[in-house]
C-alpha cells in the first residue's frame, strides 16, 4: 500500500477541535458531529479538523498523548523493552504528521514534540530491522508483531514479505527431485533422444 493510503485511513481518527464559528449538527455519512459552538471543543474526524484548520475556522486541541512527559516515558519504555511498546493509538505517526504540520501553533512545544516522536519512530524502526534479520535467519515463515502500526509495517513492504516468499521458494526447490528433461518436444521419436 501507498503511505498516502495509510494516511487516508489514519485520517478517520477522531480528535478534538475548537471552532471559531457556530453551526447546528452536521450529518455526515461517517457520523453526526456538532453542534459547533464558537469557543467550545467538540470531536471531529482528523481529516475534517485539518480542513477546518487550513481554512482558519478552528484551533486543534492537542491529543492527550501529544505532550512531553508522556512522550518521554514512551521513549524510555521503547528503549528499554525488547518488544514493541503499545503506542497511544494505531495511527500515532499520521496524527503527528498532520497535526504538527497544519497546526503546529496550537501544540505547545511542537518542535520538541516533533523531535521526540521522530526519536521513538527511529527506535522502533531499528528494532524492526533487527527483528526482520532474526526472523530471516531462523528460516522465517511466521512472526508475531503486536503493537506495530500500519505505517511501520508498510515501511518494510515489499522487502520483508518478498524475502520470506523467496526463502520459502528456495526451501521448496531444495526438496524437489532433479528437473526432468528441459525439452518438451512434440517431435517424439524412438531412438537416441538427447537432453538438450
Amino acid at each position, binding site marked *: 500500500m501507498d503511505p498516502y493510503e495509510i494516511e*487516508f485511513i489514519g485520517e478517520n481518527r477522531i480528535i478534538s477541535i475548537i471552532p471559531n464559528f457556530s453551526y447546528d449538527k452536521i450529518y455526515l455519512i461517517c457520523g453526526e458531529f456538532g453542534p459547533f459552538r464558537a469557543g467550545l471543543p467538540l470531536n471531529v474526524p482528523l481529516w475534517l479538523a485539518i480542513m477546518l484548520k*487550513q*481554512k*482558519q475556522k478552528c484551533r486543534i486541541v492537542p491529543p492527550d498523548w501529544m505532550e512531553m512527559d508522556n512522550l518521554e516515558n514512551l521513549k524510555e519504555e521503547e528503549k528499554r523493552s525488547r518488544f514493541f511498546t503499545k503506542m497511544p493509538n494505531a495511527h500515532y505517526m499520521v496524527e503527528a504528521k498532520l497535526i504538527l504540520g497544519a497546526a503546529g501553533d496550537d501544540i505547545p512545544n511542537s518542535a520538541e514534540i516533533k523531535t521526540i516522536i521522530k526519536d521513538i519512530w527511529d527506535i522502533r524502526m531499528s528494532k524492526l530491522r533487527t527483528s526482520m534479520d532474526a526472523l530471516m535467519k531462523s528460516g522465517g515463515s511466521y512472526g508475531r508483531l503486536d503493537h506495530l502500526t500500519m505505517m511501520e509495517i508498510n515501511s518494510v513492504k515489499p522487502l520483508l514479505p518478498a524475502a520470506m516468499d523467496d526463502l520459502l521458494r528456495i526451501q521448496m526447490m531444495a526438496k524437489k527431485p532433479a528437473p526432468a528433461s528441459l525439452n518438451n*518436444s512434440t*517431435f517424439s*521419436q524412438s531412438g*537416441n533422444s538427447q537432453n*538438450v
Partner: protein
Amino acid sequence: MFAEKVIELLKEAERNKETIDQFNDEKIRQILEEMHMLFNLNMTDANASSENKSLWTAVQIRHSALERNKRCLLAYLYNRMQKIKTLRWEFGSVLPTDVRELLSDDEYLWFTKYSTNLASYMRSLGQDIGYNGIDLTENLKPPKSLFIEVLCMVDYGKLELEDGDVIMLKKNSRHFLPTSECQTLIRQGILKQIV
C-alpha cells in the same frame, strides 16, 4: 539465428519500463520468418532422421528455438498490452496523436476494445439504484485539501475564494491558501510560495 532477434526485441521492451516504444513491426516480421525457416528445415530433417539419427539433435535444437521465439513474441505483446492499458487509465479513451502512433493498428484495435469493455463495466455500476455509473479513472488517489503558504508581493487587493471567503492581499502579507486557487497568481508573480 536461434532466437537472438527475439531477445533484442525483449531488451527493447525492458529498456523503457515506464513508457511504450514504437511497435517493432519489422523485427516481428523477421522473427516470424526465422520461425518458418526453422520449421521447414525441421520438416525436412525430421523425415530424414528416421534413417539418419544424428539429425535428431538438430531437430530438437530448432524446436526449442521455435518454442522460445513463440514464447518471447507473446511476452513482448503481453508486456505492451500492460502498458497500453495504463494509457487508457491515464489518457482516457482518446489517445494523443503522438501516443497513438506508437501502437500498431492491431494494438490500437485492442485498445479500443479494452476501452469499450471498461466503459461498459463502469456504466453498469449502481445501475440497480439508478446511478449513472462512476468513472473509475478519476478518484484513484486519496483526496487531499492541499494548501500552501504564500507571500504577497504587491498590493493586489481582494481575492475571493471558491468557498466564499475573501482575502485581502496586501504587500508582504502572508497567507495559507488552497494550491489550486493560487497557481495563476503565483505565475503572475503576485504571490510567491514560501517553502
